[in-house]
């Protein structure tokens, strides 16, 4: 994980938007313009048709995060954006590891590593196997480091997805905004 500098914090930003072409650029431009590196970005449709969720992880200072999130919300097709520190969200990442099949045949060690790390094998082919692990970045990295000596052919990790802890519904937020607005 990228180290934090000065009084930086890691923030997970959840952005609910219309599912429209070009919004990704509009949103990423808000970060790039301020020279903020996006550590992780996931875009997915929500269970609600036509509404997308962006989950963005960045590092910035507490006095800048509000300004940035308000710039995101200002975009016409953004419904609402929220930001959280790590303790305010339940989050996960998914990692896949490709290893030569023979490492299983030659030793029991890999099997033990998988068991200890709560990882699982999702595919076995004659030449390679694919292992899956969900967890925080430190956990998927730890597994990678442990598997490295056995010859990891390929390693890929998803962006962070996150669910916020508090219970207030998006709909309630939108209703509140609606109530204080005039059109």
């Amino acid at each position: 994980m990228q180290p934090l500098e000065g009084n930086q914090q890691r923030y997970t930003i959840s952005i609910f938007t219309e599912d429209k072409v070009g919004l990704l650029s509009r949103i990423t431009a808000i970060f790039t313009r301020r020279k903020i590196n996006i550590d992780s970005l996931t875009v997915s449709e929500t269970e609600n048709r036509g509404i997308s969720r962006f989950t963005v992880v960045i590092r910035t200072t507490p006095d800048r995060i509000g300004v940035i999130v308000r710039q995101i919300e200002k975009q016409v097709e953004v419904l609402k954006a929220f930001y959280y520190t790590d303790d305010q969200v339940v989050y996960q990442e998914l990692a896949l590891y490709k290893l030569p099949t023979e490492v299983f045949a030659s030793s029991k060690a890999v099997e033990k590593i998988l068991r200890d790390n709560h990882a699982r094998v999702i595919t076995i082919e004659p030449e390679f196997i694919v292992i899956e692990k969900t967890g925080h970045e430190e956990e998927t990295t730890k597994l990678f480091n442990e598997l490295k000596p056995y010859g990891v052919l390929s390693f890929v990790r998803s962006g962070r997805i996150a669910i916020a802890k508090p219970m207030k519904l998006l709909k309630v937020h939108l209703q509140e905004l609606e109530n204080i607005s005039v059109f």
Partner: protein
Amino acid sequence: MRTLVQLDEAELNTAIHSQNQMGPPIIEKKGISGAEAVVLSLLAEGVECVFGYPGGAIMPVYDALYDYRDRLTHYLVRHEQGAAHAAQGYARVKRRAGVCMATSGPGATNLITGIADAMIDSTPIVCITGQVGKHLLGTDAFQETDVIGISMPITKWNYQVTRAEEIPEAIAKAFYIAQSGRPGPVLIDITKNAQTEIFDFQYRKCLKIRSYFPKRKVDMNAIQRAAELLNNAQRPFMLIGQGVVLSGAQAEVQEVAEKAGIPVASTLLGLSAMSVHHPQYVGYLGMHGNYGPNVLTNQCDVLFAVGMRFDDRVTGRLDCYAKQAKVIHIDIDPAEIDKNVKTEVAIIADAKEALQALLPLLEVKRYPEWMARFREYNAIEYEKVISKDFAPNTPLPKMAEVVHLLSQKTKGKAIIATDVGQHQMMATRYYEFDEPYSNVTSGGLGTMGFCLPASIGAKIGRPDREVIAIIGDGGFQMTMQELGVIMQYHIPVKIIVMNNNYLGMVRQWQQLFFDRRYSNVDIQNPDFVKIAEAFGIPARRVEKREQLSQALDELLNSHSAYFLEVMVEKEDNVFPMVPAGTCIADIRLE
């Protein structure tokens, strides 16, 4: 803890209604082309004129314009940048979106400077660009440019139309978005196939977009807290910006200032929102603003900012800006709150509505000593700067004299369009604005070349008012081809080029901060008078102070356009000055 969110499918589906709320149909026509639909949509929005330039990818729309030329006037600019600036000038004085049009590729990219200018200065313009046919998108076709991508960071919203049926709703949204909330530029890119497809047209105005909350109701709690701060203040100070102009809150500013006895200063874009002759008006803020308002920003106890965004040209270094003051900030855009200056009370609302709510809660107050401070500082500025600017001992006139005389002759009632540079600062410092909606300038972007086309748009928007363009010799050469528009459509704009034979503002910085190393600011000019005359515009050059008054009379009495070149003092400097990145309190008088 901050409130967080959880999605619940059933509830969301019932909560989040359809994306756009549209009004009843106001125009219908069956079996028309997308191109005709573009024109009818503009007419449905009450558009009277369009600034543009044709080309391959927008030809169907131009063909449709031909049928409607009695109802929709198209002004053929000489460069698309001019179209965007003309739309801006029109929008500023007409208080509604200006429209510009261009073809794909180079036509569209030529609009970009104007769009960026409109974005940073919150000017509502609707730009319509042609695009290659849908099947050619992404193939590097002739004159294909990713205009949506290029314009994304400098538009409030943009959208690519690839089917004729999308046209009415896209244009309805464009006008709604451009003109509501904090206004801004919007771009609609229309592929050629969408212009030629035939469909049944129906126009409905856009009333609401579910993801867009342009304006908030006035929060009475915040108003209450603001009133308390102001009622208990010892040295309150009101700063007004373009938000006041955009919301039409000039009368409310005046009432609040009069009732609560608060001194008022204006940013560059707020100028003309309050008459300079009003007793509560104390001057102009910012890098080349007045001495008193700048210095006393750091002595007030309550800073009341209305429709302004604490631009760095106003604040100077932030860590020494108004640190002693409690800040009340009225702005329609939530993203402006706490962006540069931390507020005590934020009022996210339209300036006019917020001030109307505030007014009854304010106590009648007078601050004779505090007001006197402004006068003291202004007296110092008068002695050290202004008196010398007005009555110099230089052989050539100074810009300040020209503006001062013009101001007297027009009684502060003209619309003044300015370009960017020393003449802009001199014009905005010394024109004694006495009528609202009179200041058309490029503030946030500082775009040289803005003035001439913007003044054309302003004159078309307000033919009943005198429109005077004040331009530098450098900036004039950036868009002087637009004299062609003045010629072709007989637009009686009055043009004054202040010729110091320098890129004066840059030369001033080189003098003050780069040891007088004048690098590439010495500009060799053509014979401007001959150029104007070549465009059929009566023109004159003034080389002596004695000729000035009579030449200005000639300019003002002319029924047609008129071009006046004034040879001004070459190495004049604009003071006061807050050097970039310093504290406003360190403002220099020389």
